[in-house]
């Protein structure tokens, strides 16, 4: 039997002692304190086991990218421009890369000035640089509720004072945003920016309506606050008409745009960008210089070669076909395997569906149970800054697995949810009477018939055919039960009318 390779002696730090730990502890910056529950982190670590069907990731499918074309492009770079491709590049990025970016943005009707664009190491760096440039500790920042889970640690590490504004089926509640802006103004505070993923939002899967987009841009002007528009999925639309990006509506005065090739080409190449008004861009460039000098030259050369082939939109089209089928598979599986008390969004694009369970189910605990069935998802609390919110929701990804895996994964999750609901109903039958008398019971109780009707009603409101109701998300609960019944057909034509799916904090008006 072969000797296992011995690890070099310096692989790990030589010594760690408790005393050392204490010594380091005194060195840590205040911003490192904002860490998530370590128990939850450990739980997420197990989702990486190979036998687990993970609907937790946000991975695009890179398996259909043609290896031969990848090889040909890299070979061409090696043969024709090895020295340059291995060299540093300009901090702002190469002009040729910006041409490619212009093509991508052009496909959604945007036309940025090249000097307003900076090439970044993924969209994530763009978010980081925007915060680095704009946010001092304690500065107000506004984002959606739920928001992109990957943005939460960025906001926290810059010690922003984050207020989350609820979403419904039409995206961020812009009316609620206005009252938050008003409250802040009255307190003499100016938020640094409003962060939004208007199209096929991560994690909720909802898309901001045209009216709200217009209103958001107006508010940005009126309150002189920047909007950071993060648009990784805009070209991944599976149905319905495209909507103009905020950047286009605003003309780029108050909107900082963040884009990425991660979802339409590859996340591994780490290529994203930001577009910002010149004074802001100037500072972002300085920030980028301090962070990593420039985005990988090799990556930019690859992107240039890839776009020169002129088939990038065709590839996006093939991804759209694949993801549409996977989304449909997930929606069908949800319909079949999730209990009637569950609600979920019906995204017109992007990579995610957001499902919400009865309030008494904590999706963090549910994940532990699901992992025993070898299936994983992201517990909703990851999408909230404020602790305790989003506890009964989950994010489900449909881009990373095959249709078969998606169906099986949803079946398994449905099974563990069903078990928990059964158990809860058994338990509340015993104490239900007292609970009702006490008047303290605010949770929906599926054992009570009125609550059941409500739960069903809210679910079938998802199936409301487009056009049969106004766009104002609030009204959708009303009369929803009228269309209950003809579920299949209704669902097929449904808009992403997810008004009731997302957690509301009606009483609090969005205060953070």
């Amino acid at each position: 039997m072969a000797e296992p390779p011995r690890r070099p002696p310096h692989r790990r730090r030589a010594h760690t002692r408790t005393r050392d730990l204490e010594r380091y502890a005194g060195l840590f910056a205040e911003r490192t304190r904002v860490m998530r529950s370590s128990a939850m982190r450990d739980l997420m670590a197990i989702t990486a086991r190979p036998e687990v069907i993970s609907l937790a990731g946000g991975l695009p499918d890179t398996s259909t990218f043609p290896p031969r074309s990848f090889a040909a492009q890299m070979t061409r770079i090696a043969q024709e421009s090895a020295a340059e491709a291995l060299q540093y590049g300009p901090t702002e990025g190469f002009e040729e890369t910006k041409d490619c970016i212009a093509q991508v943005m052009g496909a959604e009707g945007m036309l940025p000035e090249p000097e307003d664009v900076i090439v970044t190491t993924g969209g994530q760096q763009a978010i980081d640089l925007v915060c680095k440039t704009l946010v001092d500790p304690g500065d107000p920042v506004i984002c959606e509720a739920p928001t992109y889970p990957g943005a939460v640690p960025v906001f926290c590490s810059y010690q922003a004072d984050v207020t989350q504004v609820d979403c419904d089926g039409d995206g961020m509640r812009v009316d609620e945003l206005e009252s938050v802006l008003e409250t802040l103004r009255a307190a003499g505070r100016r938020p640094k920016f409003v962060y939004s993923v208007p199209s096929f939002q991560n994690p909720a899967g909802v898309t901001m309506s045209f009216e709200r987009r217009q209103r958001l841009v107006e508010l940005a002007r009126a309150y002189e606050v920047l909007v950071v528009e993060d648009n990784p999925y805009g070209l991944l639309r599976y149905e319905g008409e495209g909507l103009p990006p905020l950047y286009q509506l605003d003309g780029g005065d108050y909107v900082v745009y963040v884009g990425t090739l991660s979802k339409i080409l590859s996340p591994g190449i780490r290529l994203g960008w930001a577009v910002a008004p010149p004074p802001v861009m100037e500072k972002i460039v300085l920030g980028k210089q301090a962070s990593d000098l420039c985005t990988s030259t090799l990556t930019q050369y690859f992107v240039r070669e890839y776009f020169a082939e002129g088939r990038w939109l065709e590839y996006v089209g093939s991804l759209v076909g694949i993801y549409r089928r996977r989304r449909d598979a997930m929606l069908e599986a949800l319909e079949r395997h999730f209990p009637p008390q569950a609600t979920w969004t019906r995204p017109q694009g992007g990579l995610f569906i957001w499902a919400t369970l009865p309030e008494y189910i904590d999706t963090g605990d549910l994940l532990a149970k699901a992992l025993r069935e070898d299936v994983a998802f992201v517990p909703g609390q990851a999408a909230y800054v404020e602790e305790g919110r989003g506890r009964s929701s989950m994010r489900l990804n449909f881009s990373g697995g095959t249709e078969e895996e998606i169906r099986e994964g949803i079946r398994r999750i449905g099974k563990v949810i069903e078990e928990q609901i059964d158990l809860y109903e058994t338990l509340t039958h015993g104490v239900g009477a007292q609970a009702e008398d006490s008047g303290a019971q605010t949770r929906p109780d599926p054992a009570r018939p009125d609550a059941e009707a409500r739960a069903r009603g809210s679910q079938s409101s998802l199936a409301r055919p487009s056009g049969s109701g106004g766009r104002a998300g609030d009204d959708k609960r009303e009369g929803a039960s009228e269309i209950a019944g003809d579920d299949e057909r209704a669902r097929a034509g449904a808009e992403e009318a997810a008004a009731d799916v997302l957690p509301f904090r009606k009483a609090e008006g969005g205060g953070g």
Partner: protein
Amino acid sequence: MKVAVLKGGRSLERGVSLRSGARVEDALERLGHEVIALDAGADLVKRLTAEAPDAAFVALHGVGGEDGTAQELLEILGIPYTGPGVAACALCMDKVLAKHALREAVVPTPDWFAFNQTAFRELGAADALEAIEERLGFPLVVKPARGGSSLGVKRVESRQEVPEALVAAFSYDERVLLERFVAGRELAVGIVGGEPLPVVEAIPREGDGYDFEARYEIGRTEFACPAGLSDEEAGAVSASANGAYEALGCTGFSRVDLILSPEGPQVLEVNAIPGLTDTSLLPQAAEAAGMSFEKLVERILGLAQTR
């Protein structure tokens, strides 16, 4: 000496176990041992047979590793291993069995009632909840019978919160317990070879009162070792800890978690294989007793037994 370090596995505490294991491997190498790192998986028996180590250092936490399963295999293979034996591991892992054993040995532990899901689903145990709540009073703590760290543990303030907490706890195990909440100082006593180490106290930072998730997080909980206790208090705590260690039949090393209430110490649980990471309590206590991590590891290894 050729030492196999068993770590990882499939339990929910895999992450902690990998960190414990890595740190133990490091120490063993510095002590001059030949180290075989084994992530406990389907090939565990095969690899142990092939490597034929002189001893196994068990750094597994949670179900599958800390519950006696891996220990049973090591006994079949005739490999001496660290920490408690099969029976003690099985007892410690199941808080309900452990509490029964503690009661029998007259070691103080908070009152409790335990149920499995069948009791609720088939025997109408929900109807008994009211009586239980009256006996235990509020607040009470709902926990899964098996499972480490704080996963699925909820403090419940009122009757309305009980079903939700039970659903959460049942996510981790088929059996859960409802335990009387005992207010007091949170203490941990590491025991190595039957000798108690200095007492560690976990002091939550303001605002984090009874957030179980915060309990073991750096920055959210401060640890004091040795805990600021009077000689009398320290004596009573160590005696209870020792009593628990013996009552459950632990050998090698373990950690006993207690609450020091005005009425005296109450044992919450015994961790058969406590964490050995940079931030774990037992190594901190050893350090306070002047025992470096290498010395601690050497001592634990020296106590490994063939069983």
